[in-house]
Structure formats: structure tokens, C-alpha cells
């Protein structure tokens, strides 16, 4: 599996946020996107996820799969918001996302119970999501990544609102993903503890330096 991004640029509103970004990631590699506030980290991830139109450039994923799919549908995206409903219980939320995201049963990975155990929430599956604390909500959103298999993870500030134990837990999750041959792209301010990571420094309008 190989992910290639070529000469990407995107704009928000009328302003060009970044320009001419290219990178290639092989199976099991990670890319950590850093840079000051407003440098375009989130915009890059959203553009990769297909949520923002790319001004120019192309992203493609070469994978061994019978039917071709769009790049976005091969990705997990963990944004700032957790994409969970406050009124539903944690279990209901997780089961919904599992059923909704699994196009066929081959995509299924771990059950809601297993995923919640992995992030340390198995005791509170029956609670409404709205009653969970910030950190618990964030961990629930991470459990979502484990429900369905997606080769590429796009993570936008994944460890915001997490304590150190949750951070190490999440670092393990990410390392497991890359060890299983997945690709990972994370935008962050903090050190994430990912092995085998390339760094992409975004400097805003002047373009990007690739500091491997």
C-alpha cells in the first residue's frame, strides 16, 4: 500500500492556505504535521479527507483491493469534534458508527465492547454520551477508529484534552495501526510518541519544508 500526495494546495475562503505540498507514505509509515497556529494543518487534513475541495493536486492510494474506492472512504478522520450524539448511550453511538461505516462485513474489526475496552471505557458503555467527561468523550471518539478497518488514519490534534495515561494508550493504538501496515497522518502540537514518523513542518504562506 502506498499513499501519494502530489502538489496539493487548498484555500479557505479566498485565501490560499498552503501550496504545493507533496509527500509519499508507504505501508506502516506515519506523517506528523506540525506548525504554528493557522499554518494550515487542519486544512491539510480536511482537504485530504475530501471535506474541502483541493485547489490543485492529487491524492491517491494504491492498495490491493478488488473494487476501487475513493481516497476519503479509505480513511478514518478524527477531527476536533467527536461525532457522537449526546442523547445516545456510548454503546449505541459505537454500534451506529460501526454499522454505518462498514460497507461490508470484511471491514469490521473489533466489536464495540472490544474497542471500548481498548480505550478503557468498557465500564460506562451504558451511559449517555453527554454525561461523559471531556477526556472520556475523546477516548470514545478514538474507540471509533477501532470499530471498522480503514487503512489510513487522519488525526487532527488527537490528544487534546487527554491526560498522560490516555496519551500513552493512544500512542499504542497508533503504533499498532502502523505495525499492522496502516498509514497515519496526524496534525499536532504535542509529541505523540509515534515510532517511524516523518515530520512535515507547515510554515503558512511561504510553503512547506520537508524535514525528514
Amino acid at each position: 500500500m502506498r499513499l501519494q500526495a502530489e502538489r496539493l494546495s487548498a484555500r479557505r475562503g479566498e485565501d490560499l492556505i498552503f501550496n504545493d505540498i507533496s509527500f509519499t507514505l508507504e505501508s506502516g509509515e506515519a506523517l506528523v504535521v506540525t506548525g504554528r497556529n493557522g499554518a494550515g494543518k487542519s486544512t491539510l487534513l480536511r482537504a485530504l479527507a475530501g471535506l474541502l475541495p483541493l485547489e490543485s493536486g492529487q491524492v491517491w492510494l494504491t492498495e490491493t483491493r478488488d473494487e476501487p474506492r475513493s481516497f476519503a472512504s479509505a480513511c478514518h478522520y478524527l477531527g476536533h469534534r467527536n461525532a457522537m450524539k449526546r442523547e445516545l448511550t456510548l454503546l449505541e453511538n459505537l454500534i451506529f458508527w460501526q454499522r454505518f461505516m462498514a460497507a461490508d462485513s470484511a471491514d469490521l474489526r473489533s466489536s464495540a465492547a472490544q474497542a471500548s475496552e481498548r480505550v478503557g471505557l468498557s465500564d460506562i458503555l451504558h451511559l449517555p454520551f453527554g454525561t461523559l467527561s471531556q477526556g472520556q468523550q475523546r477516548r470514545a471518539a478514538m474507540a471509533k477508529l477501532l470499530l471498522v478497518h480503514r487503512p489510513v488514519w487522519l488525526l487532527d490534534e488527537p490528544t487534546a484534552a487527554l491526560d498522560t495515561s490516555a496519551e500513552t494508550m493512544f500512542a499504542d493504538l497508533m503504533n499498532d495501526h502502523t505495525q499492522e501496515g496502516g498509514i497515519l497522518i496526524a496534525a499536532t502540537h504535542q509529541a505523540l510518541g509515534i515510532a517511524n514518523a516523518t515530520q512535515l513542518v507547515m510554515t503558512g504562506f511561504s510553503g512547506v519544508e520537508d524535514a525528514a
Partner: protein
Amino acid sequence: MIALFVRDVKLAVRGGGGALIGVLFFMTVVAVIPFGVGPDLNLLSRIGPAILWIGALLASLLGLDRLFQAERDDGALDLMLMQETPLTLIVLVKCLAHWVATGLPLVLAAPFLGLFMNMEARAIGATLLTLLVGTPAITFIGAVGAAVAVALPRGGLLVSILVLPLAIPVLIFGVSAVTAAVEDPAPFLPPFLILTAITLFFAVIGPVSAALALKHGAD
């Protein structure tokens, strides 16, 4: 897709009783009319179908502007946009769930309100039938407005303003079918079938353009 349907219905029932509020609003609108036009029962029975239809139209629009905004606010819309499942299908399922949770209760409440309006059994039956067929069209039209509202920083009200003119044909044929059922010479079937056709037409146009608006409105 069944999962999405079930989730949306659950949310509507649990999240502050969206379905109930719609019915309550419907009842209030209908209850207010006699104060405006006077308690003349003959007049009320004549304009009853129209009042029920207008009440149902307004009540269906209530809360419709949140259809996608709520998903946008918690980030779920992002994930929906990324799936392999066509967005049009997702929109369609969400519309159906919304209709089952809020439109269907309105339809079921209509006969009781028809009694308040001194309507004959025949007129009540016809109103029930036309509402059953016609209210989904309002949901589908409203979905376009709701999708557009996602891109708006503010303004759920603007959505209602944009959507209402598009719902005029539904109202016209809904009411005229009921009138035809009550007044003998006019046939009931032609306006009723046109109403059905309009609903089916919007079942296509609505989700397709709502999906288009969502795709382009993402930020």
C-alpha cells in the same frame, strides 16, 4: 443505512421529544385559528382542511433546519461525507427518519384536530390521506433548505423563508384534493395523484440537491 434510520428516530424521540413538540405546535396553530376567524362552525368546517394543511406545513418545517446542522455541530457530518455510501442515499434515509419521527405524528394527530374543526368524516379521511402522501414532500423540500443552512453562519429562519414558496404546489393539491372529496362533482383522484407525483418528484430532487449543497457547503 438501517442503522442511520434507527439512530435518527431514536434521537428525535429522545432528544427533548422533537416529535411531540411538532404535534404540540400543530395543535396550537389549529387552536389559534378559530380565535382569528370566529367560532362559526360552518365556516370552520369549510376551511378546516386548509387550516389543517397549513398547520401541518408549518409544523413540518419546525426543526427541519436542524436536520444537518446538528450533524455538522458534532462532526458527524464529516464522517458521513467521507463514506462510500452515496451522500444522496444518506440524505434520503435521514429525510425518511425525520418524517417518521415528526411528520407521521402530525398525520395521526390530524383526524382529532379535524373533529375540533367540525369536519365531516369524509373530509377528515381525505385530509388524513393527503397529509400522509403530501407531508413527505415537505420534508424533502426542507432537506434542501437544511443542507443550505449548514453553510450559513446563522439563520434557521431564512431557511423557512426559502423553502416555503417551494412548498406551495404541495399545499395547493393537498387542499384541492380534500375539497374535491367533499364536493361531489369534482373528482378526488386527479389532484391526489398529482400530489403523489409531486412527492415522488421531490423525493428525487430534494436528496440530490441537498447532497450537492452539503458537498459544496462543507468547510
